């Protein structure tokens, strides 16, 4: 029987004594062959967790609850019923421990109730109750615990305690000035740092002969000589970024960033900043999928594509910051109970239904072959002004996939993402993504209509045909994978 090392993933670095169940859906199932044959392990592939596992989604309230089981005599709270029962013995109260009922213990995995969370998907469920509770608190709870030394914030007190044990206890400093909290990253950095190269260059020039017995040999052209630092770095000392020196998670941003003013839920005061800037689209990227804070703006529709208002807030001005700043927000300190406040992630403005309806209405015009004109990764002639950079890109792909944006009033979802020139560019207009600016709402593909039909109710789909653009097999000749030339730092815009 091969031993399985299951170090608990969630409590590895915490001091809490909670034992966790074995790890989760993506499990090894240990089956022993009766005939004494070789032990066969059936491994589940990632993404396909144990099909027999019971998937459980607990409510936020349950996940955040601590000490739900309370003794009626002394009001002491316990996390588990078993513990309460054992405690009740001390009061000479009748107690009863629940037995493990079934012979066959059905594996349980837990999903996060938060729909936008990665762990909402059963394929990424977590295998133990403590894990999902901690996850929920960490991810969707408020970070009340702050490390004074490095400003990292934690939602779970035990995480904070664990961090406090190691923070600042060990520090490694490189000659270039960078500080590391971990030795291996320090060593690795040090080995390649210019500071060392320069130092050895200095000693090199001082050394009379470079032929110590244990020195490195001057072999053929491929051999490197240690200490020959004359070819030392010509680049200026870089700004090393290490995890220990990067900016910390800002409070409130750990939660779905589109906090709306009417839902404070005890969040950190960064929220008011969010509120004031939400209309000026501070978090435009993150809020693409975020709620419409003003549903009342949607007036009675006159055209089918009226849904401009949910996305109005996303029109940017170049001057607005792209993300919240978290300076000056007061921090919750002091020991309180571990109880996390939950701020539910607001529902996205566009339900899947609504999005798909719109997609159907845009439909496709068979006469428009420029599909990928619209699917471009570059923003084109929008007046933002950054496109000069984009168009002069060497990267043909991006330049040639530039978007043409007709000024069509009915193209409801104009979404000119005019961000600053970050490495990751801008979001093009969504509607004209498809090059369909002039299309009316008439035609739609059969596929999408079928899709919409599944939501109950028919739609006017017109004479839809699954148009294909005759792609056939005659593709343009492919270049090799590594043929793409270097582009400028103003990288290709993304979607």
């Amino acid at each position, binding site marked *: 029987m091969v031993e399985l090392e299951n170090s608990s993933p*969630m409590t590895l670095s915490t001091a809490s004594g909670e034992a966790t169940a074995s790890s989760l859906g993506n499990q090894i199932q240990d089956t022993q062959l009766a005939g004494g044959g070789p032990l066969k392990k059936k*491994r589940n592939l990632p993404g396909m967790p144990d099909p027999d596992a019971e998937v459980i989604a607990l409510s936020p309230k349950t996940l955040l609850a601590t000490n739900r089981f309370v003794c009626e005599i002394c009001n002491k709270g316990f996390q588990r019923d078993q513990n309460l029962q054992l405690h009740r013995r001390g009061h000479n109260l009748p107690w009863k421990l629940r037995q493990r009922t079934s012979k066959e213990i059905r594996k349980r995995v837990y999903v996060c109730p938060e729909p936008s*969370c990665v762990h909402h998907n059963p394929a990424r469920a977590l295998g133990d109750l403590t894990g999902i509770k901690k996850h929920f608190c960490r991810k969707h709870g408020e970070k009340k615990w702050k490390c004074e030394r490095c400003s990292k914030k934690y939602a779970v007190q035990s995480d904070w305690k664990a961090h406090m044990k190691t923070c600042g206890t060990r520090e490694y400093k490189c000659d270039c000035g960078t500080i590391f909290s971990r030795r291996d990253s320090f060593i690795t950095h040090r080995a390649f740092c210019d500071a060392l190269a320069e130092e050895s260059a200095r000693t090199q020039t001082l050394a009379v002969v470079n032929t110590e017995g244990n020195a490195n040999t001057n072999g053929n052209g491929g051999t*490197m000589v240690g200490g020959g630092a004359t070819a030392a770095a010509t680049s200026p000392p870089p700004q090393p970024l290490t995890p220990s020196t990067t900016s910390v998670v800002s409070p409130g941003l750990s939660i779905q960033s589109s906090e709306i003013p009417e839902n404070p839920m005890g969040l950190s005061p960064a929220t008011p900043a969010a509120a004031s800037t939400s209309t000026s689209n501070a978090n435009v*990227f993150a809020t693409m999928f975020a709620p419409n804070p003003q549903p009342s703006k949607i007036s009675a529709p006159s055209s089918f594509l009226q849904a401009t208002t949910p996305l109005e807030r996303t029109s940017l001005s170049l001057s607005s910051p792209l*993300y919240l700043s978290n300076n000056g927000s007061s921090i919750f300190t002091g020991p309180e109970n571990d109880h996390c406040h939950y701020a539910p992630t607001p529902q996205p403005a566009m339900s899947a239904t609504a999005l798909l309806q719109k997609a159907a209405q845009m439909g496709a015009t068979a006469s428009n072959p420029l599909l990928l004109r619209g699917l471009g990764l570059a923003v084109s002639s929008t007046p933002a002004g950054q496109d000069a950079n984009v168009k002069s890109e060497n*990267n043909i792909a991006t330049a040639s996939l530039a978007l043409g944006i007709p000024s069509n009033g009915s193209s409801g979802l104009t979404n000119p993402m005019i961000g600053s020139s970050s490495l990751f560019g801008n979001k093009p207009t969504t509607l004209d993504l498809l090059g369909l600016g002039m299309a009316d709402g008439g035609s739609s593909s059969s596929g999408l209509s079928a899709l919409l039909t599944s939501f109950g109710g028919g*739609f006017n789909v017109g004479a839809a045909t699954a148009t294909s653009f005759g792609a056939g097999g005659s593709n343009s000749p492919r270049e090799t994978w590594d043929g793409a030339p270097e582009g400028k730092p103003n*990288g290709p815009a993304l979607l």
Partner: protein
Amino acid sequence: MKTEVRGNGASISIQNPSLFNTPQDSITGALKGCLGSLDGACIEKLLLHCASALENNDVTLAQQVMWVLNNVASSVGDTNQRLTSWFLRALISRASRVCPTAMNFNGGSMIQRRLMTVTELAGYVDLIPWHRYGFCVSNSAIFKAVEGCTKVHILDFSITHCMQWPTLIDALAKRPDGPPSLRITVLSCRPQVPPLLNVSKEEVGHRLANFAKFRDVPFEFHVKDDPRLSNESLAVQFESLLTQLTRSELDLREDEALVINCQNWLRYLSDETKGNSAHGFSLRDAFLDIIKGLNPRITVVVDEDSDLSAPSLSSRITTCFNYLWIPFDALDTFLPKDSSQRLEYESDIGHKIENIISFEGFQRIERLESGAKLSQRMENAGFFSLAFCEETINEVKSLLDEHASGWGMKREEDMLVLTWKGHNSVFATAWASTKLED
């Protein structure tokens, strides 16, 4: 007849609805349950539908699904949004190959390539334990395997530009009986995948040698080159690789302990079996066969624990989507949404996603196989699996303690696997080429 459809407060009237029977009934069923918010499962379905639309040449449907996905995607959003943005980009990249257009599309990657300095790369590999885990386990196993040896030669097949070695050099320097002489040989050819450096391999070796000298470890660094092939494609270079892996070509010396280090590398060796080979040998198998023939003291193989080389695009999308969320999620744990380090790291993963999803044939160089499959392959090649000792386990545990909670480790037979919230991320294995005498 008038139907009203309500979507989130908006009321839309539609005239003359009619039900449409379509041949694509599978699409209708699959999207049930996506009402309301678009969660990860729904996004996955949309990706799959987009992919199948492309495979059926239904460009119209593909467009429409892409439009929906585009509303979800955001490279600076939450984890799901970020993942979606890279997957969508990959699908678009694929679509642009499917549909002939008037554009001059050169067929290369759409993703910006970024060059790092060596110190930036040093920080990069330590951002999350993804790489460091493999380094730690491998170095620990290597250290143990070369105990008592005075000369060590490492053949380094990896894509992380020797970031692994400073800590090993450091450990060897502190050996009670003194450090061995250390030689490291790397190949000149390397897949054009991130992370990319702005300096040459020679420069990297230069600095490494510098460090070794600083630590008083006798050190040599070689770049195995074949100048005839410098302008050839990677595939051709890899093919000729086999001819370069001989004792004489590598200058293997009798008194050296030979160590083979494969880090995130075997996946780039083609697994296509040669048509005329009776034994069904692929380049990958041939490589392992040659390596074994060199009789190394230890061979360590580290790679990502997922099967991402299935012929079926849908299968790859599903597996990829349900695997690569892990580094995205890990980064999300401690880096803010606007962190440039995070964005760069994610972009590199996006590069991988693009190759897996958008390319086919010889251009699809990412042919990852899981630890279980790789182990089987190694056994078939005649290697014997080595267990990792307690010291190694403890070193890894200390490493993981220093990172965010959520990282864990588990043993699967002799394999050690890094886990994130229990999900397998990176596997590490060690192999002997001969059965050890007891």
